[in-house]
């Protein structure tokens, strides 16, 4: 855990308490059963808005708290631990596109509503099943945007979309020219195919803004992955301490102890890399791109290890829907792909370093 200031400690503890009590895995299961169109719980989102978490990276003059990305990561990490379904990460990062963008009108109009949770926003960038940085299919003519984004996370409940087009980033409100269709994915969270047909669009910035916003989205996703990996690991460790076979609790078997020690080791490196990326963003460092690629590649590999081991080490019950292992596994696989998988980020890290 990075060294935190008092505000950050308070924020983390509050988020941990709320997520453990109000947004535990059981709440996700209820939401899954009820399957509301937006794929998150409206009451929970209302509480998140009231606590000001959607405004953590929004400047104070627009109703936010401007604590920064490390702070946002702390909150998202706690939600990740509990698999809490919420559009917090997507809204916060979409808001930061407006913060960094060139439109004063957009700042004045939308940031206060995003900071309070009144409006929900998300990013619509990728045009295929993997993130490869290409957005050639989306164009803007005369302030009207046309293109299709087949996998938009939190697209079902979003009021506005920050959309990547060939020449940069645009803000599009849900409504005229926007068609949202839910895509039912393994993690049972919100993913949508969003089609834009001459939708009114306001420009926020060029391709360099798109790149900066995608890096932020990846870093915040890493924080969710960190929370998930730690919770999955902890639950597996707890399970090994109570499951008895051959007259011994499983936790006494050295073969399993070493597998757990290996995962713990990787988790330590993962935390350093993830916090390193969030801190790099807050510090305005010039190597944010590298720090993010390091974080996403490391987070992807480690969450993959821990979530697969969670199923294996739970044995048969790990395969049942009643246990949580499968829920962590399925969400993990989706986040591994989102904003570039480990292979993509390794290659990018190599290119950035001239390897």
């Amino acid at each position, binding site marked *: *855990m*990075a*060294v*935190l*200031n008092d505000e*950050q400690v308070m924020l983390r503890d509050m988020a941990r308490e709320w997520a453990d009590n109000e947004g535990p895995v059981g709440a996700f299961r209820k939401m899954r059963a009820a399957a509301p169109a937006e794929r998150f719980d409206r009451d929970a989102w209302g509480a998140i808005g009231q606590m000001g978490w959607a405004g953590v990276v929004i400047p*104070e003059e627009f109703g936010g708290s*401007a*604590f*920064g*990305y*490390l*702070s946002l990561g702390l909150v998202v990490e706690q939600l990740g631990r509990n698999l809490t379904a919420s559009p917090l990460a997507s809204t916060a990062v979409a808001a930061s596109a407006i913060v960094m963008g060139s439109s004063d009108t957009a700042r004045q109009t939308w940031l206060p509503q995003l900071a309070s949770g009144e409006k929900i926003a998300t990013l619509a960038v990728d045009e295929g099943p993997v993130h490869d940085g290409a957005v050639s299919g989306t164009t803007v003519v005369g302030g009207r945007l046309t293109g299709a984004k087949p996998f938009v996370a939190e697209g079902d409940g979003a009021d506005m979309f920050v959309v990547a087009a060939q020449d940069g980033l645009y803000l599009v409100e849900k409504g005229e020219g926007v068609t949202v269709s839910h895509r039912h994915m393994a993690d049972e969270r919100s993913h949508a195919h969003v089609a834009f047909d001459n939708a009114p669009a306001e420009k926020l910035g060029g391709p360099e803004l798109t790149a900066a916003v995608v890096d932020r989205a990846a870093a915040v996703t890493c924080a969710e992955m960190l929370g998930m990996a730690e919770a999955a690991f902890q639950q597996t*460790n707890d399970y*090994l*301490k109570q499951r008895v076979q051959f*007259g*011994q*609790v499983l*936790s*006494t*078997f*050295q073969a*399993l*102890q*070493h597998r*757990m*020690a*290996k995962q*713990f*080791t990787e988790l*330590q*490196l*993962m*935390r*350093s*890399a993830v*916090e*390193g990326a969030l*801190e790099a963003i*807050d*510090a305005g460092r010039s190597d944010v791109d590298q720090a993010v690629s*390091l974080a996403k*590649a*490391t987070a992807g590999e480690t969450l993959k290890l821990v979530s697969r081991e969670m199923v294996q080490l739970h044995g048969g019950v790990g395969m049942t829907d009643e246990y949580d292992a499968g829920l962590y596994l399925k969400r993990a696989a989706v986040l591994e792909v989102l904003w570039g998988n480990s*292979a993509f980020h*390794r*290659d990018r*890290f*190599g*290119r950035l*370093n*001239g*390897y």
Partner: protein
Amino acid sequence: MATAPELDRPADALDGFRQEVRSWLEANFPPSLKGHDNSMSAVEGPTEETPEQKAWREAMGAKGWGVPTWPKEYGGGGLSRAEARVLQDEMARAGAWNPIGGMGVMMFGPTLLEYGTEEQKQAHIPGIVRGEVRWCQGYSEPGAGSDLASLQTFAEDRGDHYVVNGQKTWTSGGQWADKCFALVRTDKSQKHAGISFLLIDMDAEGVETRPIRLISGQSPFCETFFTNVKVPKGNLVGREGQGWEIGTRLLQHERSSLSGGSGSASRMNAGKSVPEIAKKYRGADGEGRIGDADLRTRIIKHEMDQRAFALTLRRAALEAKGNAGPSAATSIMKNVGARITQDRAELNIEIMGMQGLGWDGEGFSEDELAQTRSWLWGKAVSIYGGSTEIQNNVIAKRILGMLDHQ
């Protein structure tokens, strides 16, 4: 507004001290010594000191700055941690190296300061501070490696002295050492509680060392034989039977200093990264990337591993300062450090092919021959100071609370 957490004391509080260090270094460290590091190493033999190197060692020894945070009354620097960091910064800036080192500094000194009597500290600490006395470690035995507590070397009570008989092995630098801190058995009826921590003169009658030749061709370790060696009772540190506690405490100092891999291996690779070596030996593709795509991916993985490890070292240091307690992350350092050292060497020899496996003679550069040695020597990193398997046991039991077999 979001600000980075305040991690360090305001710089100006230390400015006066920084100035003092700077002037002292200017007066005492001749620039001609830059890059002519002659510091005492645990696994390398003593080398001939030039008059300049000797003067530098004596100056640092007299000042106590080779061990900056050790107490002044035994010759140490008596500096706060913040001052020690300033000293470190300024030495790096001046290109000055620390001539005081070895096992006395890394392991034995801190342990004696904690457990020794006033008399023992007065007798042994100043010699370490001045870099005059070389210490070696008598822990492992042929039958007691990872299971160290099964050691058999016996110290028999003869009233005012002990008589020691037995064999130690993997005694780092035993052939060059003046003194040995050893774990010996004073009670055969109890395993851990029968062990004591004893200081033995290496030139005492009945002590014999034989260097062990390693796969790398080097002989940094010895077998050490004790035959009826007389050791005064005043050389017992702590109580009889307290040796296991003292000995494990000492290993914590060892593990925290070993994670970076062996000094010689990291010194050898200094300045040349694996990607650079890859491009030099294997060439680049049209876009300037490492040509072999499979190799490139593995090199990138290694570089990322290294970067994440560096961030973890930094995080653990900040956490230790910020939370006033050791960070859980420190338990992984030895294993990850070992893995990175070994991965680097394996990548390098793979890249260099036959040219990276030369043993001797014409047709190999010095770097290439050193690479072979470094690769082989690096295999020790995951074995010594608590093997990777033992470290995993420690993580599982102490950190994760996993249980012993019933």
